[in-house]
Every structure is written in C-alpha cells, then in structure tokens.
C-alpha cells in the first residue's frame, strides 16, 4: 500500500533498557511530533516488527541514557534499516545504530552538556554553527561509505546523512535545544 495521504504515521523507536527513561528520551520527541499534528506510535526496539516499519511514514530512532549500552548487543533488530526506503532519523544512540548498520565504527567520545556544532552544509534548515545539548559516551570512529558526515564538534562527527536515501543521524539531542531539526524531518515529502 503506497497511499501517501493515508500513511502519515511516525514510528518512534525506543532504545531504552529502562522503561522510566522513555519519559526522558522518547516523550520529548513524541511531543514535537504531536505539536506538528502527526500521529505516532512508540515501540521498543526489542518489539519492533516489520509491520511497524511497513505502516510508518517516517521513523525516528530515539536515544537512551549514558549508562545504557544494551542496544549495541542487538544489532540484528535493526537489519531492516539497510533496505528501508522511508525517511529515518537516528538521534544519539539511534544515530550510532544507523552508523553501525552502514559499516561505521564507534569509539569512546564523551560529551555531556552544551556544545558547539558546525555544519558543513545545509541540514534541515541549519547551515552554520549552533549550540546543542549532548549526552553520550560514544561517538564515531569511522563513518561508512554510504554515509556522509555533515556536522562536527571539536571532538568529532555530530551528524551524517545517507548518500542517496532520506536517512540521517544526529549525535546530539535536537529535541532539547534544536527542535526545528525534528520538525523539518517530519515535514520531508
């Protein structure tokens, strides 16, 4: 079914090991989606089925806490990303997952709090230096060939996009200080 008018659902994938963390890492994104008057469903990555992906218009893979690395042990749950033709946005841990699916490598890279992020090119309406909220212990060591880095902090890559698909990863948390990025992603046609 490719009826674009009917399929407008946004699937928010939670990577949280702890249920309580969904209030912190998924709900703020859900609120932005709601404010854009779009329907959404929240599913945990361990329970995500191909049906969820099929019925989605777009997919956002949300972040999780600093102490949570469980999602890295379940990469098989994310194989669908490789052949997915729908727009996908990965935030923090979600960006790490997308990077790994496309043969990138991670490294220790800790950033907690406000950082400066410089964009090399226009990315969801941003094309200069911004202040962003970050919360992660891991960053990117090597970005896979199908992906292209588009933003950097003094420590490393902060955002990338896929060479040919609407697939994006952002290491910082746009839902905190840069909500317009998520709003622009939701509006992709």
């Amino acid at each position, binding site marked *: 079914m490719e009826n674009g008018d009917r399929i407008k659902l946004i699937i928010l994938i939670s990577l949280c090991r*702890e*249920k*309580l*963390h969904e*209030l*912190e890492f998924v*709900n*703020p994104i859900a*609120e932005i989606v709601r404010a854009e008057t779009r329907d959404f469903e929240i599913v945990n990555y361990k329970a995500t089925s191909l049906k969820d992906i099929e019925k989605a218009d777009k997919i956002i893979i949300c972040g999780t*806490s*600093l*102490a*949570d690395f469980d999602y890295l042990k379940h990469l098989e749950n994310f194989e669908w990303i490789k052949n997915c033709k729908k727009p996908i946005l990965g935030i923090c841990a979600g960006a790490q997952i997308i990077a790994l699916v496309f043969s990138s490598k991670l490294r220790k890279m*800790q950033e*907690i*709090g*406000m950082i400066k992020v410089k964009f090399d090119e226009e990315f969801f309406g941003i094309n200069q230096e911004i202040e962003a*909220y970050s*919360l992660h*212990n891991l960053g990117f060591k090597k970005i896979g060939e199908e992906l292209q880095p588009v933003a950097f902090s003094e420590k490393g890559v902060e955002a990338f996009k896929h060479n040919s698909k609407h697939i994006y990863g952002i290491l910082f948390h746009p*839902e*905190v*200080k840069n909500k317009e990025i998520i709003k622009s992603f939701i509006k992709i046609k």
Partner: protein
Amino acid sequence: MKCALLFSGGKDSTYAGFLARKAGYEISCLITILSENLDSFMFHTPSITLTKKQAETMEIPIIIQKTKGIKEDELKELESVIKTAKTKYGVEGIVTGAIASVYQASRIQKLCNKLNLECFNPLWQKNPFELLEELIKNGFKVIIVGVGAEGLDESWLGREIDINMINDLNELNKKYGINPAGEGGEFESFVLDCPMFKKPLKLKNKRIAGNKNSWRMEIELN
C-alpha cells in the same frame, strides 16, 4: 531498581519520585541539599529543612547535606552524599525533577556517569502547563513558598496550585514570559500532600519576608 530521589520538597522532585514509583522503581532514599546560599545555582532553597517531615510521612529515609552554596563545592558535596546513598541504601539510580535546565541536568548526568549510576529525569522537556495539570489530576496539594520574578508578589505566597493559578500563570506567561514551571526560580513550591504521603502535612505557622518581586514564606508544620 533502587533509586535515590534528589528531593527539594517542591512539586518537581516530588512528582518525579511519584512517576518513578508508578513505573515500578523503588525510592530507597531521599537526598536533600540544604544550601546556605539562597541563590544557589543548583538547588532550590526555601523551606528545604521541612523535607524531613515530608520524608517521614512518605516513610522513606532521608539524607540531608548542608552546603555553603559555592558553585563547584556544591557538586563535591552532592557527589559525596550520592556515594553515601549508594553504599548505605544500595541505590543504582538517581531520580531528579529537572525539566529544562541543561545546567542542572548535565552536571548531575556527569556525576552519575562518573559514579556508575543511572540518571532518571522523568520530567525532562515536559510542557510546564501539562505538568501543573497532572499534579492537580494526581491529587498533589502544592503551595507557593517563594516568588522571584516580575509580575509575582507576596499575594502568591501560600496559594495552592489549582486551575485558577494555571490561568493566572498563563496570563503572566503571555505578559512577562514567566515560565509556568517556575524552574528558572520564578517561584518555589512545597508539597503538602500527594499519593506518596501516608498523611497530609498541615501548616501551623507562616512568616513572610521580602520586597518588590522577591518574597519568601517560611512555614512551620504541625
């Protein structure tokens, strides 16, 4: 999971604890930082000594730590008190009532990261009006014990958070840009009753001090 709640006695930290419990987490102890600096960067200060009474009615042990309220010393003191909670009560996580302050949140995140603890901020980025509505819906009885912003005066002290207050805050938000959550120090609140309390707390005495747009109400409980 056993957690310690960073507890100021106000609406945000209490509600964060309530949400944690509702999600199946155990609040094993409360941590109150009693700052001698009334303009503490990290901690809300008015009426904070009364958190002991709130802890009693919740039947949860409380650790109260005094601090001089000097910026970086506050953090060291917080670290030592969280370590105490870890060893004494075996907590694996810290729950806070942070909503929007990246300053507060990132410092506590760093501390938890260093101490190998989970950090939970269940109110993070929450719409402040929704938060106030949820408090009312869940039976929280909360009064204002301090104000510190243009548009707020001593007439707000002692007022209970109810639908009228939400309407008034909405007006002030439009007029002066006041954050209705009060997280920027616009106002300080104190919880007299909520589902976690075995018995509600009752006011015995109150004393008001301040000037212009900065007022505090010292309260005494029965």
